[in-house]
């Protein structure tokens, strides 16, 4: 895996994800494998095939978060009220 392919794979599951953009193309097993490696996680191809379906089902929900427009002044909550 070279740097170019890694960045391409990360782009597929990151904020500009083809998968998460709701387009019908599912992320390839290779792309998922590259992202998992980049995140330090070892997953077999069998596991990746299961997760491919799971992520496909969740992409609309994840995309809601990615598309939500938030004012720059809004900070992540620290949990105190």
């Amino acid at each position: 895996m070279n740097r170019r392919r890694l960045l391409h794979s990360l782009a597929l599951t990151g904020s500009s994800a083809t998968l998460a953009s709701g387009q019908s193309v599912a992320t390839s097993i290779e792309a998922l494998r590259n992202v998992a490696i980049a995140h330090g996680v070892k997953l077999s191809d069998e596991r990746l095939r299961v997760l491919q379906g799971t992520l496909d089902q969740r992409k609309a929900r994840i995309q809601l978060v990615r598309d939500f427009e938030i004012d720059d002044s809004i900070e992540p909550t620290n949990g105190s009220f």
Partner: protein
Amino acid sequence: MAASELYFQSAAELAPLIQSRKISPVDLVRACLAQIDKTNPKVNAFLTVVGDRAMQQAREAEREIRAGRYRGPLHGIPYAPKDICATKGIRTTNGSRVTADWIPDHESTVTERMNQAGAILIGKLNLLEFAMGSGQKGLNGPARNPWNLSYSPSGSSSGSGAALAAGMVPLTIGTDSGGSIRGPAKSCGVVGLKPTYGRVSRYGVTTLSWSLDHVGPLARSVADIARILQVMAGADPKDPTASKAAVPDYSKALAGKVKGLRMGVPSEHFFTHVHPDTDRALREAIFTLKRMGVEVVEVKVQNAAMCSAASAILLGSESAAFHQKRLKEQADQFDPLVRERLEAATFYSAIDYIQALRIRTTMIEEMRRVFRSCDVLMLPAGNAAPKLDTEITGTDLPPDPPPAPRPDAVNLANVTGIPSLVLPCGFTTASPTLPLGIQFCARHFDEATLLRIGHAYQLETDWHKRYPPAMA
């Protein structure tokens, strides 16, 4: 009093009998153990029963009460926590083969406070593995709904709801990160409270999601919820997220009037895909509350649809982080669906997570805005209990699922940390007869208003007094 008469009494009904020595804690514990023996093989609510220990504690309670040392309204009352609360020296499985043999060397704060109040631990309750919303196989198979054993009690605090409905114990403890107290309360026809985030210490309770986890009580009545919350709530040096906000006298809230109380009812979003039975029951409840003097105010919760989306990323990321080591070393020991959910979170980015936290900030401010125009918010608690599928393969979403009620109605309170109470408000019309629930939410740390409206509603109705005939 015959043992069978004790099974479905609330703690509020039992306490004066114990204090006046009309019944003994020994008889009460014995009755609970008998009911567990009779119904648990079918309901599977309990994973562990500590009968000998409970009887010993009951005899101690009896001696103390005879000597005039009555500790309060929970003294001598049996209870059981979800098996995710560490109990020193007693197996705590988290409903998982991963920790099936774990015997903690420490006590969770919530059970320690119950024990100090004189409540008697009867055993540990079944749950969905590690409190995740999936994984019905778990350690010992799923708990079943006492109203119909082919149906789910809902989860993840499945045993906490089922044990109450089956008359096994009058008080239980659950946890709620995405509806896991309120779902079982609704499906089992009992009362469940998800308190304000930080109202109850999470020390000694296995983490699902640091941002969304809440520990809370389930019981047969709102009056009982007030008593158990009084014991559980408060600061804890062992849990830095446990709030130092003053704990009010919750029993005083029960005496409050509801005339003039403003109840917000959302005009859109939350009531999509609500079953006609649920819709009818909620409308009847609104009618009852209006008759009692509650003012209904139409409100709108902006960006409500973001709650379940943000919750999914927060819960997924945090649970994956918590289980990272276990997932590397014991992946095969997890329920397949739990493992799938944990591994899927690998593919969320840090930006996704931070955005979810910023959505949380946005929604907290939104609820502050909503509560300027109402004192309590009414939401659906979901439709009636689903059928219990013992074989779930592949992913945990069946193909072409029927439209489900908006999960945001449940996730809203977890994401924003506001307290939320679910109580029974009716039953399904078609067979099988299953309970229906109504949900109320309030401002942060205003559990008192929830208790006030919930108790007032229960004085006017008797849904909470009904129990499954098959369990009697």
